[in-house]
Structure formats: C-alpha cells, structure tokens
C-alpha cells in the first residue's frame, strides 16, 4: 500500500515533470528573445501580414514551458515584456511586462500539469496564452491607462489560432537548442 501510494504520488506529483525540465545556454536565452523582439520590430515593416505574429509571447511561453519553473517564467516574462515595452516608445514600461509576467507564470505552472512535449498541447497552450495575453493587455490598458483599445473577439480568436499554428513548428525548432537540466 505504501508502495502503491508512493507510485501514485510519483505518478501524479510534480516531481517527474519537474525533473524533465530543460535548460538553455545563455546565448539562446538572450538571443532568442532578442531575435523575437527584432522580428516583431522590423519584419512587419516589410511584410505587413506578419504583424499578427506575437513572437515575444510565443518565446515567453516556450521558455516558461520548458523550464517548468514559475519563478523562471516570471523572470522570462518580465524581461521579455519590459524589453518589448522599451522598444515600443509610446507605451509606458510595464504593460507588456505585467502581461507577459503573468503569461510566464501561468505557462510554467501549466507545464507542471501537462505534457508540454505534445504538439497538440502546445497548440492549445499557444492559442490560450495568446488570447489571454491580448485580453489581459486590453484589461490593463483600460484599467490602468484608461485607453480605449479595441478588442475584436473574432479577430483575436483567429489570430490566436494562427499564432498557435506558428508556435508548434517554432517550438519544434527551438527544441533543438535545449539541453536536459
């Protein structure tokens, strides 16, 4: 009984998933978010139809999912969000930071519950976190800045699907850069 209970605990506890956390070298941790932000800043200048991609968010979600640590997710999200804020001059610093901090936290928390290696899970998480990101940003803009930002639900859902579809192959590529913790 004790063994069974131990097995069950082992099976359902955080430990096994936690033990499957991944690490990244410093260049990847700095370079990938930077590349994502640069993509966000420059690519839509030439390819307008790519402006719907929220690569910094996808990268935040990916790192949080892979690290499987909410604290790490908080730092990833805050760092990437603040960098994005810093390169979006009209926006005050902190808007993307707060939203992505929450995303990082919840993504890391979700990674402790789900098998984030599964592409379908990644697709759903990508969709969910994009929608959450947009919605929460809209809430913050309303609540903190009193900005009247439009929130088009249908469009947001469609763009969320598109981002989720991009997230799956992107995560597959980024998987090549990780190393087991």
């Amino acid at each position, binding site marked *: 009984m004790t063994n069974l209970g131990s097995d069950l605990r082992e099976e359902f506890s955080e430990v096994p998933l936690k033990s499957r956390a991944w690490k990244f070298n410093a260049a990847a941790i700095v370079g990938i978010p930077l590349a994502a932000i640069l993509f966000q800043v*420059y690519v839509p200048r030439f390819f307008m139809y790519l402006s719907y991609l929220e690569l910094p968010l996808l990268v935040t979600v990916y790192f949080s999912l892979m690290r499987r640590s909410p604290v790490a997710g908080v730092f990833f999200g805050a760092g990437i969000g603040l960098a994005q804020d810093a390169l979006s001059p009209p926006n*005050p610093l902190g808007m993307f930071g*707060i939203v992505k901090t929450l995303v990082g936290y919840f993504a890391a928390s979700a990674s402790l519950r789900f098998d984030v290696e599964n592409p379908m899970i990644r697709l759903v998480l990508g969709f969910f976190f994009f929608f959450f990101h947009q919605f929460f940003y809209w809430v913050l803009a309303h609540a*903190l*800045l009193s900005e009247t930002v439009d929130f088009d639900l249908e469009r947001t859902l469609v763009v969320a699907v598109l981002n989720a579809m991009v997230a799956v192959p992107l995560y597959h590529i980024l998987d090549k850069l990780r190393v087991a913790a």
Partner: protein
Amino acid sequence: MELLLNRYRNLTVLVIAIVAQLALLAYQVKGNGEVRLIRVWAVSAVTPLARLIEGSRSNISRFFTDYFVLLDVRDENKRMRAELERTKLDNQYLQTELATADRARSLAIFQQQSPSKTVAAHVIGNSTAVTSKVVIVDRGTNSGIEKGMAVITPDGIVGKVTGAYPTASYVLLITDPTFAAGVISQKNRVHGTLKGQGYSTAMVDYVQNEERLETGEWFYTSGDDRIFPKGLPVGEATVVRPGKSHKEIYVTPSGLQNGLEEVLIIVQGVHAPIPDSRPSSQDVHLMAPPPGEGSSDPAPAVSGTFTTDADRLTDHYRKIGEAEKHVYGGHSPGAPNYNIDLDAVSSKAAVSPKAPVSPKDTVSPKEAINPKAPVSPKPVVSPKPADPKPPSPPPAIEPLAAPPAANP
C-alpha cells in the same frame, strides 16, 4: 512567515514582479516620468543587431533587385535591338519611298514643263541577256508607246523603245553597244554620234580631230536621228582627246546617274533649242507653284524665254530704257546710257524704299519657276550661278516682303 514564503514562493515572486511593474507603470503615468535609462539600454542593445539585419536585408535586396533589373535590362536590350532593326528597315523603306516620291514629283514637274508630250513609266525589269543594256517598262502600246520612241528622265536621255507590247516595252539604254543617237555639244556646237560602250560611259564618235571641244562640255541631242527631240541633255564630256581619225570623246550619261526607276517616254517630241547654261545637277527640288497665284500674274520680265542673241539684246535695251526712263521712239531727249550697270541699278532700287519698284523688276517665286522657261533637264535650283545671270536675284524679291506702299 518564512514557511509561508517558502510555500508560496512562486506566487510571492509573481506578486513582487507584478507590483514592481505596477509601481513603474504608476510612476510613469502619474508622474509623467520617463524611464529613459531602460529605453536607452533596450535601444542600445537592439540597434546594432537591427542595423546589421537592416544592412544585410538592404544589401540582399539590392543584389536581387540589381540582378533582376539586369535581367530586365538584358531582355529590354534584346527587345530594343530588335525594335531598332525593325526601325532601320522601316527607315530604309521609307527613305526609298521618299526618294521614289521625290523622283515621281520631279518627273511630274518635268513632264508638265516639257514641251514634248510624254508618258511616265516605271522600270519593272531588265533584259535577261547579260551583255545587253535593255530594261522593261510598264507602258506599252495600250499607252500609245511605239517602237523607236525616245525615253528620257529629267536628267537626260535614257534610251529608246526597241519593242512595244500592249502592257510593256523594251527600252534600249544609251549604254548599250548597239545604241546610237545624234548629239551636239553645248558650247561649240560640235555634232557627233553617241554610241554605247556596254558599261557606264558612252562615247561620241565621228567628231573630227580639228573640231574644238573641251572636257566638261555638255552634249545635247541634236535631233538628227529623228528619235530624240533636239535639246535634251545627254551627258558631260569627261574625256576629250585626239584619236586616229576622230576625237575620242567619252560622255557620262546624265540620265542614268541617279538610278533608273521612273522614265518618261516621248510620244510626241518637240524640238527645243540647246540651252546656254549647263544643266543643273543639284538635287534641290523646286516646290510646285503655290495655290492662288494663277495665270493673272504679270508676264515675267526675265530673259529666260529668249532664245536668240537678238532677243537678249532687245531685252537688254528694254531694261536700259526702263532704268533711264527713256521711251524708245518717243520724245525723250537724247539717248539712254547704254553702258549703265543694270545690276547695280536694280539692286539700288531694291534697297531704297523710296525708289519706285516696277512690277517687272521684281520676280515672284512663280516667275522663278517659270513653266515657260526653256526645258531644264531637271527642275532644280542650282546654287551655282548660271551662265546668263540668274533671272531672280534675291534682293529683287525683298520688296515683296516689305511693299513700298506700306512705307509713307
């Protein structure tokens, strides 16, 4: 407390991060503060990479743009070359057409001015025999062409009809060895017989060595052969030298010098005098007379219609009389000054606005193209002064532009 923090470590970190950012946000919103340092760091961190990416992008873009531009340039070059070739061909064709139209107009003017009745014809072929100089023209007996008729161009004689058929005729060129025609030199009135040589020049035979003849002298048809009317230009003597029994005179036929595409067949010849001036060979064509100047124009007071020395002398005396205001046979005292320089008087009258200008002293453009003038081998304006002084000196035309009546 420590246990609590350890238990909710993740949440605590999250709350701290959120609160910190909210504080930052509040600081910016409420205090209108600018967090310049963070932005500077972010921009400084991103700019070199962005510049690198932008440089690479622009270089790659430029490379591909140039590449495709060069591809386009190559295609365009090819296309434009083809177009240029087409344009050259078109240009050549149009030039040929223009020359043809020019010749046709020249031929028409000449035909109109010629006292002989002529029929225009196109050369449509050559004889199949290699040695013979025979061409086929597109006029035949249906057009009134008969064997033995003379064939000319505005530049000179071409040959004679040796065979006439309903729709075409054979023309024996003057360069054919079997061709012969009576000719007379312009200056010394030396008679001879023009004979073809089989090539581009012809020779004038049967001119005695004692006869006086100069190189460059023009030959005209004499009318002795009863084929060519008298007075048609034949060509210029390029070689004149004594021979065994007769002079060796070689003539460059003027009628064949400018190609042979359109000719005139003389169906009813009229003899004309041998002109005093050498035929003009310049290719500046005269315009047709302008419309509106009909036959009501005063008769030209030029000496172009005079054919004998007596006519010229009469005209000269008439001009002297006009210049001196002397009426021959009238009651004018004394005699006019016969040594007066008529050119000086006429130019002075043209320059002086107060001087009355006689209509007869002025020469209208119509008069310059006098259809009644002796047959010119080609209706062209010669820049060289003709042997008798040209009938229309430029100053005499000036009063037309500024009529004296307008000047009080």
